[in-house]
């Protein structure tokens, strides 16, 4: 019962604090921009063959998905960074943690609230990009649900790590730490891509190590690999496509990673003084 009360409060908090609405408005603006771009690209494109036209529009679609993924990453970290550390610092948590509810229920309730919110956000934003790409440019996303699932997993990895940091650090520090670690993974991902392009195993290994440290970016790259068109997979010419796709083992590792992060967050929150 307490878990669902906290989940409801967390969801309502986002709505009342206008975070959700602002995110939806900003997401709507993003989709409008994407739709406009797609519309003009689809109408005004002059290429020698239909195959190349299709490739260009698919690249635009992947670019849209890539930007939507970046927005999801930022959204995840921004909404979750303050939830524990902010309430501990302000003393708000005192009135909650003295009620007949365990700390596990408090944290899981918040987690469920954020997962619900992020699921809706991902469906709206990435689903919107996929739909607009299809309607306006005829570009299709391969393995859409697998791709959306992987972006969802990426968001949950970041959510859990942000919550874990929130049990130990201030709001600002939590945000900076998680963004920093994701930045390392992001950079590692690009080093791995370039390594794959230049056939440098050392550079690929750097990317793998970065993914082990934080698997969020590798989940996006796996999602991009699954969602990109077969032709794009063969040509490997777009910055939004993937040359070195993380294996299914890396996805399994990411699932274990997010479960461990949530477990550690629950344990730290249960044991810490408030």
């Amino acid at each position, binding site marked *: *019962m*307490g878990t669902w*009360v906290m989940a409801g*409060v967390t969801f309502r*908090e986002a709505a*009342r*604090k206008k975070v959700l609405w602002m995110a939806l408005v900003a997401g709507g603006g993003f989709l409008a921009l994407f739709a406009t771009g797609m519309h003009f690209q689809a109408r005004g494109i002059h290429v020698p063959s239909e195959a190349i036209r299709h490739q260009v529009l698919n690249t635009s679609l992947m670019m849209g998905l890539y930007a939507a993924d970046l927005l999801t990453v930022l959204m995840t970290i921004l909404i979750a960074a303050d939830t524990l550390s902010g309430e501990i610092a*302000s*003393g*708000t948590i*005192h*009135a*909650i*943690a*003295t*009620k*007949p*509810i*365990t700390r596990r229920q408090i944290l899981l309730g918040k987690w469920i609230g954020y997962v619900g919110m992020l699921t809706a956000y991902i469906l709206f934003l990435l689903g919107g990009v996929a739909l607009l790409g299809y309607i306006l440019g005829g570009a299709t996303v391969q393995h859409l649900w697998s791709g959306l699932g992987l972006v969802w997993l990426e968001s949950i990895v970041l959510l859990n790590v942000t919550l874990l940091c929130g049990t130990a650090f201030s709001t600002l520090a939590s945000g900076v730490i998680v963004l920093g670690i994701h930045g390392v993974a992001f950079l590692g991902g690009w080093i791995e891509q370039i390594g794959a392009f230049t056939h440098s195993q050392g550079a690929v290994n750097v990317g793998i190590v970065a993914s082990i440290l934080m698997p969020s970016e590798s989940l996006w790259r796996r999602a991009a690999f699954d969602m990109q068109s077969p032709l794009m997979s063969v040509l490997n010419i777009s910055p939004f496509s993937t040359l070195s796709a993380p294996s299914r083992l890396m996805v399994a590792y990411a699932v274990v990673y997010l479960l461990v992060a949530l477990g550690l967050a629950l344990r730290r929150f249960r*044991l810490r*003084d*408030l």
Partner: protein
Amino acid sequence: MDSIEMQRASSRADLAIETRGLGKVFGSKVAVRGLTLEVPRGEVFGFLGPNGAGKSTSIKMLLGLIAPTRGAALVLGSPAGDVPVRRKIGFLPEHFRFYEWLTAAELLGVHGRLYGMTKSKLRARIPELLNEVGLWPHREKQLRNFSKGMMQRLGLAQALLNDPELIFLDEPTSGLDPAGRKLVRDIIRAQRDRGATVFLNSHLLSEVEVTCDRVAFIKNGEVLETRRLGALLEGEVTVTMRTGNLSPETLVSLAQRVSSLKATGDLLTFCTPSMDPLPDIVRFLVNQNVDVYEITPQRLSLEDLFLRIVGADGGL
């Protein structure tokens, strides 16, 4: 002995709170040295001490917000922090804060659901409580528009939602105007009248003096003394007397009848266990040809007692 062992060993059903050597160390700083306390059920218990004495840390340990590093505590017969027993506990934190996007009525709804109260019960209880703390006209207002005093009243309301058996009030009159303070006093009395135990931490000794049945004085994380306030207020009297023609022999004789005698010129100060011996003392002095111009008996106030027990430096 930990709290579980203490629970097995204790047979004091008459106690709302029982602690044995409860202590907390933060790094190298000792916040609470060893708190040993017994709070009888149905009383208003004042928890007094200077700043940094460990009062708030002690309350947080009793509520399970902070884990003690030593000692044990039972709250309503269960180890401190026990989740089921929290259904019977209300708590007003020192600086009550909550989600400022909620309205007053919604805040009570959230807290009520955390207590496991049904919707129908909350529908009756919320208006009742908002009326009691004078916030009914502001029920639809978001907390971001509340003053500090209004927040404190709302915090008090959420602490009473579940008709608790034990209520912890940490500086409940903080930020309140005189009308608000009177409201707190009335609520505390009403809670005692319905049989609840109130654990009150307050710096305002005058408030404590008129509401508490018993007080504990704490300093450096230890209880220095616990006293019943009724006995205190009916007890020791400090007397100031202006006299003339007082011989040294009379002064020696007077010193045998009173305590803490001091003579500064024609001014005498001394203490008696109650008001009763005063007529005899005056009669004795007059018989010794002492001129008595003025006599002012003063009961010991809680502030006097606080300063005497805790010290004027406040432990700093």
